[in-house]
């Protein structure tokens, strides 16, 4: 039985209101809502659904195609994972998380540019509230201000395009905007870019990230770094590779900004001493990479990068948040040997780091390979060079952390378990199970990359790409 995509938005939104009323049942409501969504997402009917009783293209529509399918799976499954890992921390935020989930699903699913704005704002408001968990109101406020500026810019850009195309429906806008001269599109495109860039953590709107993610806990860290940013990047991909395809000028501007984000993120992560800070800058860098790929039109590798980042950051931010909570610091120098008595958490963190760096035997390698192949097949070798240089830096800061957390001991002496900071468990049993599951997924998909590629390919292929641009099996690679 296939269900209507509206349910993905309606269920959490409805439960959010119910949760406000029945305070005592909040835990159950959250569990049911999140689990139901993560389950139902696999049975949602494909196609464009008009809502509100109007006919297309005048109605607001929800579009579930192969692309947004990947988005909703990511959003709902990762939210489930985030809630499962840090269920105790959700207490005060049940309605917020559920409303945010509704907004995220709406963002990914919607086929209407203004509706996208509304859902983005719902998501953003829930994000502002979640960010206040960090007990740094100034940072939350800062986030809110940047978010508001972003939304105003987005609206401005949107209205400028609306004035030229006369429609808000994405598919119709895509047709009409193709007829408009490129020069007229540059400014609106860049304004829209700035609007989406807030949640996607791209420059110049990434000023909030350090304050918010740097003070995140196991729940908010995962929500921001993997759930929200995946959804925002999927939206970015939708808008810039499907609806408003940037012409040369706008394309160059966006790609340069995205690559600058990548580079700035990597070097900033390299200098950071705090675990969460390293991770958040690495998230910024990955977002930049995905955005650059989308803006160039390489949807498939971009989606792989998003999936890889979401899975990896889920593990890493929950580990970092818990480490901070247990040991009172997340300066990794002060956490020497935290993994010594936390084998599962340590292995999961290590696998996630390997995957993010794009090292083989795990999924990240497949993503990296596709990124490189996409550009090099096209004959561009500047971008791959930047990406690989970034990878070296990325590997350097991750290996530094891993070594520190795995092998305590003075320089010149053998690594010694007695030198570790302590024996506190990083995850509770439920968290351990979730983290191990995600880790197993990363490993398994590393061994069977082509099957993952086939799952993702329609999402990438739908948008004019040729599916897996590179196959790990030689039969296909040899043919080309």
């Amino acid at each position, binding site marked *: 039985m296939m269900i209507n995509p509206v349910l993905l938005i309606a269920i959490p939104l409805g439960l959010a209101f119910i949760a406000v009323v029945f305070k005592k049942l909040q835990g159950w409501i959250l569990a049911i809502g999140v689990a139901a969504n993560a389950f139902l997402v696999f049975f949602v009917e494909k196609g464009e659904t008009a809502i509100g009783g109007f006919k297309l293209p005048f109605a607001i529509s929800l579009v579930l195609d192969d692309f947004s399918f990947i988005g909703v799976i990511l959003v709902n499954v990762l939210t489930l994972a985030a809630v499962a890992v840090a269920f105790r921390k959700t207490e005060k935020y049940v309605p917020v998380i559920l409303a945010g989930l509704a907004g995220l699903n709406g963002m990914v699913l919607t086929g209407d540019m*203004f509706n996208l*704005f*509304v859902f983005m*704002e719902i998501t953003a*408001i829930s994000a*502002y*509230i979640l960010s*206040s968990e960090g007990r*740094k*109101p*100034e*940072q*939350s*406020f800062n986030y*809110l*201000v940047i*978010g*508001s*500026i972003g*939304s*105003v810019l987005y*609206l*401005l850009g949107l*209205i400028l395009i*609306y*004035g030229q195309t006369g429609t*808000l429906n994405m598919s119709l806008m895509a047709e009409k905007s193709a007829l408009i001269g490129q020069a007229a599109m540059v400014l609106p495109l860049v304004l829209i870019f700035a609007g989406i860039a807030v949640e996607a953590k791209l420059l110049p709107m990434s000023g909030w990230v*350090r*304050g918010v993610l*740097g003070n995140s806990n196991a729940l908010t860290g995962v929500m921001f770094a993997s759930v929200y940013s995946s959804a925002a990047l999927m939206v970015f991909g939708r808008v810039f590779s499907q609806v408003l395809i940037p012409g040369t000028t706008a394309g160059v501007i966006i790609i340069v900004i995205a690559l600058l984000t990548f580079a700035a993120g990597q070097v900033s992560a390299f200098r950071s001493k705090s675990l969460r800070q390293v991770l958040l800058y690495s998230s910024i860098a990955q977002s930049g990479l995905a955005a650059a790929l989308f803006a160039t039109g390489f949807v498939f590798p971009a989606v792989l990068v998003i999936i890889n980042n979401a899975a990896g950051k889920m593990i890493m931010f929950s580990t970092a948040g818990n480490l901070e909570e247990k040991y009172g610091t997340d300066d990794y120098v002060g956490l020497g040997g935290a993994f010594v008595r936390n084998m599962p958490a340590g292995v999961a963190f290590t696998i996630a780091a390997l995957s993010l760096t794009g090292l083989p035997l795990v999924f990240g390698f497949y993503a990296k390979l596709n990124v490189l192949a996409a550009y090099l097949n096209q004959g561009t070798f500047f971008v791959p060079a930047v990406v690989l240089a970034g990878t070296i830096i990325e590997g350097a800061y991750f290996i530094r952390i891993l070594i520190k957390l795995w092998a305590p001991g003075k320089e010149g002496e053998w690594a010694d378990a007695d030198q570790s900071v302590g024996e506190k468990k990083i995850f509770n049993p439920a968290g351990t199970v979730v983290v191990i599951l995600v880790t197993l997924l990363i490993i398994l998909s590393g061994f069977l990359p082509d099957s993952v590629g086939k799952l993702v390919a329609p999402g990438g292929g739908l948008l004019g790409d040729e599916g897996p641009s590179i196959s790990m099996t030689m039969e296909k690679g040899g043919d080309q």
Partner: protein
Amino acid sequence: MIKFASLLLIIIGLYGILSTRNVIKILVGINVMEIGINVFIIAMGFVNDGAAPILSVDNPVNVLKFVDPVAQALVLTSIVIGLGITALGLVFARKIHKKYGTYDLSETGGES
């Protein structure tokens, strides 16, 4: 003309955010900016001598010069969202005041 005035409003709002470190004033700046963008949207949908997009005795079906109704619908939504953001911003402002005893961000000591 209205369009330019509204763009000016947006810029004034941005300037407000830039120039002050007072939480409340920044929120006011955001509001000014939002009003600017709302006016801009209305202005985009405005048609000279256009009628209100409502079918009535005065406006039979075949009147061609309607003002764009979509823009007005958008503005309604946008105002509501702006309200929500402002309310939340005020909550944060209150929290900042509770924690630091001031609304001035330059006096909070720059948390990170």
